[in-house]
């Protein structure tokens, strides 16, 4: 594919900016979130929550700042991404605040840590920091292609981020945290963006070699050994992460990300086949000797087994999550009126979807899942619209990572696949996750802005004059 052919599905020329659409959607997103907050207060305490004003103002400020920055610095950006992220973040805040009110969780925290502090204010702070990062991305990253320059630096940074948690103690069985004093970050969340940048840069350069220099064997194209090298390295790396950090989610995410980007770059189906075979082999291999992973697989196979044969807590948590979805039924119990806090540990983080499922029911779950689906598909659309291969690769990498993360977390909580310790983007409590995902949306918006920006009128060129045959 050559760079100049216009294959975008969005009309790149004279596209309306859609900024007012975005503004309307943002108003809607903020209104829904504030309504949810009021709803929780009314259901749990019978009165409008006292912090409602501050919460509403905070959310309006965040959305407003985001919108103004997009209007100024990325006028042609996709109009759906920001409102969707705002709505998910706002609803997430309402759910976290709802779980903060749970007497069961307060009691549990007091029993375990001796003290209890609500998470919602912290999450609001993280959201503000996230939006600040989003603003910084849009202000300082004038063109996403600048990132191309940092291909190998990105690789080094990503590796450092991934390996660091090994030197810190495990939290609840998984080594995915860096802890300095009271300050903790989950580097995996940031690594996924940085590694997408590295892959995009690397593949843009190497894709022809990977795609063309191959032998045909049994109907599929086998790449040459030296081109196969990188995928083997990444595969080995993800397995290593899995083994040393017992983090199934992150390794699955990186591996999936790499396979998707390779496939898009080379247009060779054989990479997908390889990818699936290798990840299956790796996963089975690790599952046979890693007890933490084994526990989760057993818990996934039969979540209710631990009630009869006393096993790890992972099982009971999955059983509880599945039951909370069942308790929600079609329409849910109503905000603040469910018992999803029975899940206890990580109820407002990894398991926040259980609360959605129980209190908003199937209807709410479908709405939330479709919202995630929309973000993903708008990301893929951005990739389609992008005019440069680096932008295409980066956009598909980021949306692919987002998609895999949503699937792995939601699937894990709903018992569709074994549970892995990742967070639901935007909704779950956690600073790293909120910050990284706002940055991710920022980059996507930057790419979509570049893609949809009307092409500058071609500069007069003597060369062009010579070859031009027809001129209206």
């Amino acid at each position, binding site marked *: 594919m050559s760079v100049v052919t216009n294959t975008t599905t969005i009309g790149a020329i004279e596209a309306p900016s859609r900024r007012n659409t975005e503004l309307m959607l943002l108003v809607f997103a903020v209104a829904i979130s504030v309504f949810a907050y009021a709803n929780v207060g009314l259901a749990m305490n019978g009165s409008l929550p006292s912090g409602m004003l501050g919460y509403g103002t905070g959310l309006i400020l965040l959305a407003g700042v985001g919108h103004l920055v997009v209007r100024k610095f990325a006028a042609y950006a996709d109009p759906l991404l920001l409102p969707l992220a705002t709505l998910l973040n706002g609803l997430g805040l309402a759910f976290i605040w709802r779980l903060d009110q749970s007497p069961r969780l307060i009691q549990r925290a007091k029993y375990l840590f001796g003290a209890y502090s609500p998470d919602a204010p912290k999450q609001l702070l993280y959201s503000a920091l996230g939006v600040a990062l989003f603003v910084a991305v849009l202000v300082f990253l004038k063109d996403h292609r600048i990132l191309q320059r940092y291909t190998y630096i990105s690789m080094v940074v990503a590796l450092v981020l991934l390996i660091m948690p090994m030197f810190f103690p495990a939290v609840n069985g998984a080594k995915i945290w860096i802890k300095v004093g009271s300050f903790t970050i989950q580097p995996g969340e940031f690594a996924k963006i940085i590694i997408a940048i590295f892959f995009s840069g690397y593949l843009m350069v190497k894709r022809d070699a990977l795609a063309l220099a191959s032998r045909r064997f049994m109907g599929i194209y086998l790449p040459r050994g030296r081109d196969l090298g990188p995928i083997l390295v990444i595969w080995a790396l993800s397995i290593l992460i899995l083994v040393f950090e017992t983090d199934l989610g992150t390794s699955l995410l990186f591996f999936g990300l790499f396979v*998707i980007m390779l496939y898009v770059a080379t247009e060779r189906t054989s990479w997908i086949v390889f990818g699936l075979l290798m990840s299956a082999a790796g996963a089975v291999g690790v599952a046979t000797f890693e007890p933490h992973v084994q526990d989760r697989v057993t818990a996934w196979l039969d979540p209710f087994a631990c009630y009869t044969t006393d096993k790890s807590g992972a099982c009971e948590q999955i059983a509880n999550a599945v039951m909370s979805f069942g308790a929600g039924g079609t329409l849910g119990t109503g905000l603040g009126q469910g018992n999803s806090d029975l899940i206890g540990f990580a109820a407002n983080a990894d398991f926040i979807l259980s609360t959605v499922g129980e209190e908003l029911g199937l209807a709410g779950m479908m709405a939330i899942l479709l919202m995630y689906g929309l973000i993903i598909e708008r990301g893929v659309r951005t990739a389609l619209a992008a005019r440069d291969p680096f932008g295409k690769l980066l956009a598909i990498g980021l949306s692919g990572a987002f998609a895999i993360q949503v699937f792995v977390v939601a699937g894990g909580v709903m018992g569709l696949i074994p549970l892995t310790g990742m967070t639901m983007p935007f909704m779950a409590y956690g600073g790293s996750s909120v910050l990284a995902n706002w940055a991710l949306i920022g980059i996507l918006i930057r790419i979509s802005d570049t893609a949809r920006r009307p092409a500058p009128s071609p500069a007069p060129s003597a060369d062009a004059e010579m070859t031009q045959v027809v001129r209206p």
Partner: protein
Amino acid sequence: MNKPLRRIALFCGLLVLALLVRSNWLQYVKADSLNAKSENRRVGIERYSHERGNIIVDGKAITGSAVTKGSDFKYKTTWQDGAMWSPITGYASQAFGASQIESINDDILTGNSDSLFFDRTLSMFTGDKKKGGNVVTTLNADAQKAAFNGLKGKKGAVVALDPKTGKILALSSSPSYDPSVFAGNSTKDSDNRQVLLKDKDKPMLNRALRETYPPGSTFKVVTAAAALENGLYKGIDEATNSPDPYPLPDSTKPLNNEGTIPCKNATLKVALQWSCNTVFGKISNDLGNKEMIAEAEKFGFNSEIFTPVRADASVYPEDNRPQNAMAGIGQASNRATPLQMAMVASAVANDGKLMKPYMVDQLTAPNLDVVSKTKPEKMSEPLSAANAQNLQAMMENVVTNGTGKSAQMGNGITVGGKTGTAQHGLNNSEKPYAWFISYAKVNGSSPVAVAVVVEDASANRDDISGGGFAAPIAKAVMQAVINSKN
């Protein structure tokens, strides 16, 4: 590069679709089975999140609800005079489930019954909090109190019935327990229950319904009914042609009477008055095992009775001749629950018709609308009206002139009764059970029939007799019923 991009878009779409399908599967298809899981704590949380309905006696609730602290389960059941009422209500505990009425009528009490559907739908619109319905019992609070106080400090049971309807008026078991002490789900509740379970006096055993005793001489009423029904004698004043002592058939052992009483060749009436073993042993043998079983079964023996709380089956067994003769005087393998013997007395008092005993009169919605009402039901007719009246004459004679004098009430109230002192243990080694069954008649109709059994091991052996121990309790219960009717 766009073709793979479109495929990736499709792949991501499939991932989201898989999540949507899973969500539908869990929340629509599997929701009911997940909610029915015993591991699901929500079931309990919902169940105890609102006040449970009450059990009502004489228009007053004997149960209530209290808020529990520090638990997911908001309300627990409380009892007023728990020890007095627990033989009827059973228990309802957050941790240990429920028994008896609390368990049988659980869906009404929790408000989950289908018959409360309309009520629930209505309160959904009015915004009322969900509440449980009530169980209105047939019991008479005064009679129950009399029975409970009468048994105080003794082991035993009392059952009082309304012979015309089969309503249970009193049902007491002693020693008893207070279900309030383990209604919650704390460690203390658990400990309290353990203490009760380990108590060698078995306070949680419902002696009125779930313990069978040898009925002793009170069973002679059934034997007499069998004799009359089968026309063994022309009347209650005909000589029975019986020796004293009576040689047990197929055995070298004679059957003796207690003390020196005029039993040789006595009439039925005199035999019952003095409680002659020889006469009734002979009748049982003359009629044979088959006939005796048939008559006993008409009175309700050999089958469980549901009031709706289950009562153990009383037993009149198939047996050889000497054992059958012994069973005819309420010994050997003959076993009866106190409820069964109250039914015997009530059938006689009700001119031969045995009404099915019941203790739940009505089930009502939280707003006191009647959801269902129990209709009195005839269970069988163990003896004809004429024979029943003959037997009444015999039992009234027992109270006026015989062993049951201590149950006399005066004031124009006629009392018919029969005492019993049932031997038990190997070779009669243990202290016997004192029995008394009776009925009272006011203006020719009987409002109450009672059975009392006292198994008091602490009394002196010589003091134990139906007339001395059990009759005063029966008298107090009957008096309470009659007084409350006026």
